[in-house]
């Protein structure tokens, strides 16, 4: 057979082209839609997509259902907000610090990675609630329910990013970097290991994998990414309130992953776009939009699809088959 055995499936030409087209579209977007609101929304999509990607690693790859990512997102946001407003720390350092603080906080979850399924999920819910309580009650630190105001815009090397297109590029750039990193991870020994753990933990252990350690690593990585996203969020909206980071936000992140397609990195991005943008499109129906949102969720689940990514893939395959047939009869 092949002289060079392939541990990871080779990416097809179509896939590479599609990626290129997608990235190009992202880069060109601000030129076409210079409306600041649209750019702001897309920045939010990118920010949320980052957290969703981290959750995909945690849930889709290693199989750990965490409904507490909003906690790390919030920790990152407040860390960055506080460092820049109270201590005048420059943005790049604040960004990094957000990731680090969030991942240190996630170490509290390490003992919990021993638990499985439901119990793990409930523990993460508890953690999310605890963090929210701290954000709400410790006014001296976080401003409590009054929130944290006056967070400065992103400032890189002395240049403040006033143009919304620049913060768009920053957010999209970070999201793309996270995406690329996770693609690499997925195709590595680490990626195979955590997938193995998800598919059969006993067999993984018997093959010598340090299961708890690997699972914890996933938590830390996902938290780090969520922390980074939180920092970007803080400087994007420039005002933080504890109610931005409740359990319901964690649920939103989970939705993004499930709707986009569990196990698909691109799906997490699609899911983020769906969850962030849909309520905006539904805004016309006002009070009823969350209702419709909930109903859509239920209906989507009833059909048990492999998420938006699955639908996209199926469409792609169908199109490909059509084109081949057309070319053959051509």
């Amino acid at each position, binding site marked *: 057979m092949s002289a060079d055995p392939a541990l990871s499936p080779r990416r097809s030409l179509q896939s590479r082209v599609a990626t290129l087209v997608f990235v190009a579209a992202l880069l060109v977007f601000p030129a076409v839609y210079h409306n600041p609101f649209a750019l702001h929304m897309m920045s939010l999509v990118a920010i949320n997509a980052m957290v969703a990607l981290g959750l995909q690693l945690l849930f889709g790859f290693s199989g750990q259902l965490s409904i507490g990512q909003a906690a790390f997102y919030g920790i990152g946001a407040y860390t960055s907000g506080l460092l820049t407003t109270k201590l005048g720390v420059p943005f790049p350092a604040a960004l990094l610090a957000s990731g680090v603080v969030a991942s240190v906080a996630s170490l509290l979850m390490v003992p*919990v990675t021993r638990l499985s399924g439901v119990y793990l999920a409930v523990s993460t819910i508890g953690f999310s609630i605890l963090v929210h309580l701290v954000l709400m009650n410790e006014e001296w630190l976080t401003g409590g329910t009054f929130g944290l105001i006056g967070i400065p815009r992103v400032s890189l090397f002395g240049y403040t990013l006033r143009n919304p297109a620049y913060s768009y590029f920053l957010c999209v750039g970070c999201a793309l970097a996270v995406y690329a990193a996770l693609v690499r991870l997925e195709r590595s020994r680490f990626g195979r290991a955590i997938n193995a753990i998800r598919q059969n933990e006993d067999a993984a252990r018997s093959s010598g994998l340090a299961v708890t350690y690997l699972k914890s690593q996933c938590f830390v990585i996902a938290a780090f990414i969520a922390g980074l996203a939180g920092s970007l969020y803080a400087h994007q909206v420039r005002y933080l309130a504890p109610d931005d980071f409740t359990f319901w936000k964690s649920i939103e992140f989970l939705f993004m992953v499930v709707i986009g397609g569990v196990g698909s990195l691109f799906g997490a991005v699609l899911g983020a776009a769906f969850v962030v943008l849909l309520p905006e499109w539904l805004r016309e129906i006002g009070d009823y939009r969350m209702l419709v949102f909930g109903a859509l*969720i239920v209906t989507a689940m009833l059909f048990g699809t492999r998420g938006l990514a699955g639908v996209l893939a199926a469409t792609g395959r169908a199109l490909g088959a059509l084109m081949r047939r057309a070319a053959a009869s051509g």
Partner: protein
Amino acid sequence: MDQAYFLDLLVGGLAIGCVYSLVALGFAMIIRATGIIHFAQGEVLMVGSMSGLSTLWLLPRLPAVAVMLIAMLASGIVSVAMEFFVYRTLRVRRIPIMNVITATVGMSILFINAARIIWGSEPLRYPDLFGTLAYTFAGVRISPQLVWIMVMGLVLMGILQLFLKYTRTGLAMQAVAQDPDAAQMMGANLTRMMVYTFGVAGIMAGAAGVMVGSLFFSFFQMGFIIGLKGFIAATLGGLGSLAGAMLGGILFGLIETFAAVFVSSAYKDGIGMVLLIFILLASPSGLVGLWKRRR
């Protein structure tokens, strides 16, 4: 701490504990029968609470027990409807468990927002259901509400136990929960048992909803945190154990009430979370599991 205060806290803790027990029982029963965590159980409680309130608005002089029964009926129906429209479809189509859990969360969102549209977003006061004269016990004055809640809670739990142990339907429900295949072979109708299970869980939640409404107030998001605490209580007792659910609820109510005083009332909700995490780390099968292992 003086005796009166202590007794106050004790009664308060027991009362809220009874509420948690009822919710926990619902979780436990559904998990035993279907393996799913019925995230929307809290919303069922909320529906019961709101229905009771609306009933009182329509018929202000209706006695407490009647209000309860109506609320229980409403929540029972809602719970069964959930089973019929959502869970049954999920089971029949063999949808993966993650999608099921997401669907139940979606249902929660649906119900919470529907409630907000129907009843508004302000907390709503329950009119006094149980009279205002305080009972006196051992020289201490206790609110009649708390006593009534405890009594009704315990009565309901007692009836449930009797139902499960001594009626054919109850036994069939238990059989289905333990081993659906064997139960079916013995003639139990699986679908009907599912309906009953959800129905009973809904009834319990509805009663709890009225209790909470009269203790505190009703509002559209009340189901979430109470549902979560009921779930914690069920986990404390070991998910899937009915006795554990009841004990867990009462225990959790007591711990929460006393800890709020001794630790911090702002973090009252957090106490439950911390407790939960510690219990799970010590023994994933809850306190009942720990106890069983010691024997």
